[in-house]
């Protein structure tokens, strides 16, 4: 069974002794350093771009909970993300754009859409789940597209109040690249830790069980709809948090944010980065958006490039580029060691 789902969900499966990598503190320090580098060298535009990568990567991370651990390939995931983006954008116009309020609105919207989706798709699996989630997503898209007074229709919504962070001392505006990048970084990190705790907690193990053997899980006394609903809610909350910040990066949210092609794009990112790895969501998002932004300035054929990268990943590195490259280099090192 050389499926894409192999080896996923085993985030902590390998005993520490086998790991050749650095101790935890060194890892954290390295990560912090890596995160700080853009602050020194990148301009405002690049920092906004990095913020976008992190925000969309967070949405892809939430999709990984469903795909990588529940075997639930959703083509309606954009609803959680885009729905929250619209909700935040609309709420900002009346409530102002306090970042905490925005996140609360986004998370609530993400979870509400997940609940709606969950009630509908609960009993379906595999291709039936794929199609039903697609249909639900497209119904939402139709509503967004046609409800011009609220959503701006095809034009979407533009121009929001400045995103702000209220601290005890002062109100900090989050309207420049540096601030947006830092906000996205905090969001991504929090989401990663939440997702990681989810997959290692009993609920995560149970979700993995439903992916492998549904019948067995019911025989063990687990309610499969309940597990799925919890996974959808967790996923919706994370996607919603990401969606809440999304409009403020480019000061725009349009109906494409809830379209099924957005969901398909997230799946492509997830597969490129590595299904079931959690961190792969950010790698995939960076690769995809990198191609989209930088290749498109040389040629109109950037979708061709994305398609080729995606197909090659599926064919040669079904566990994602990081795992794939690791394996390839590992083999070369082994070969060198032997010669």
């Amino acid at each position, binding site marked *: 069974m050389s499926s894409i789902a192999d080896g996923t969900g085993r985030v902590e499966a390998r005993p520490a002794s086998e790991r050749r990598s650095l101790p935890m503190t060194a890892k954290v320090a390295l990560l912090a350093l890596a995160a700080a580098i853009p602050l020194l060298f990148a301009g405002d535009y690049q920092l906004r771009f990095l913020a976008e990568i992190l925000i969309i990567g967070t949405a892809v991370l939430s999709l990984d909970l469903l795909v990588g651990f529940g075997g639930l390939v959703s083509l309606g995931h954009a609803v959680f993300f885009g729905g929250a983006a619209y909700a935040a954008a609309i709420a900002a116009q009346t409530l102002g754009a306090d970042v905490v309020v925005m996140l609360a609105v986004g998370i609530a919207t993400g979870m509400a859409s997940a609940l709606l989706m969950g009630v509908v798709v609960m009993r379906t699996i595999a291709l039936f789940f794929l199609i039903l989630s697609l249909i639900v997503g497209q119904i939402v898209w139709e509503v967004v597209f046609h409800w011009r007074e609220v959503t701006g229709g095809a034009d979407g919504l533009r121009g929001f109040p400045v995103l702000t962070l209220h601290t005890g001392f002062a109100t900090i505006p989050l309207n420049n690249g540096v601030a947006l990048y830092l906000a996205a970084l905090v969001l991504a990190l929090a989401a990663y830790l939440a997702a990681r705790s989810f997959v290692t907690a009993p*609920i995560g193990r149970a979700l993995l*069980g439903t992916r*492998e053997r549904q019948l067995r899980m019911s*025989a063990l*006394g*687990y*309610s499969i709809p309940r*597990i799925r609903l*919890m996974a959808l809610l967790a996923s919706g909350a994370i996607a919603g948090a990401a969606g809440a910040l999304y409009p403020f990066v480019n000061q725009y949210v349009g109906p494409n944010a809830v379209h099924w092609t957005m969901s398909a794009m997230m799946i492509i990112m997830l597969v490129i980065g590595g299904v079931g790895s959690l961190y792969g969501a950010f790698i995939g998002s960076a690769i995809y958006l990198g191609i989209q932004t930088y290749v498109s300035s040389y040629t109109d054929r950037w979708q061709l490039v994305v398609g080729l990268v995606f197909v090659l990943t599926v064919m040669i590195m079904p566990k994602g580029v990081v795992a794939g490259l690791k394996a390839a280099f590992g083999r070369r090192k082994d070969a060198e060691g032997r010669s």
Partner: protein
Amino acid sequence: MSANAAPALAIEGVAKSFGGLKVLSDVSVTLGQGECLGLIGPNGAGKTTLFNIVTGFLIPDQGRVALAGEDITRAKPDVRVRAGLVRTFQKSMAFPELSVRENLALAARSRSGEGYGWFGSRKAVVAADEAADELLTRAQLRERAELPVAGLSYGEQRIVDVLVSLAMRPRVLLLDEPTAGLSRAEGEHLIEVVRTLGEDLSTILIAHDLDIVFGVCDRVAVLDLGRLIACDTPDAIKAHEGAQAAYLGASLGEAA
């Protein structure tokens, strides 16, 4: 009738057809508290279908199923498990890539209701692991706890299957061919594990090995072509003509 006086499990007039095929017709059996009931019959007699109806994977066309006096005919499988009705399957259903301990812990957490925990579930995880280790110790499989189930011998895998069901602390346990493919000694050891680890347990055992059934069960029910043709003590069944006929010459008396 008070709940205490009710049988552990009562199957009343159950019938089931698939399309035109009648798989079970008017089957009634009761399982007393602490009793071990054998369920035998040739292939296709409807034994597994009856298990599927009792455990909620199928809904009967007619009849009812009651657990300790409470009607559960239409309850979902997971609800029945949490009420103490647990089964094993003919094929091993353990998660092969998970460790033995994790398999047992998954079962223990479902019974304690902590299987859905997310934040702050550390305690539940530790408790379930401890429960798993205790069962493994008592079954003398403690040193296998870390191994993935796929790495065990076939006989050990079947025992792990039974331990998984015991980790759910059942009141009624349905064993579907737990000894199939095992040697005589392995089969007897497995039954021994069930009897020593499952206190106050009422059991229904499906097995092709009649020696085991007649040796350990208090009563034996015989199914043939979806009908219950006899239900009595092992000695009475051995002498029962209809039961003998169902086994086409395989003399039940000789088997024991």
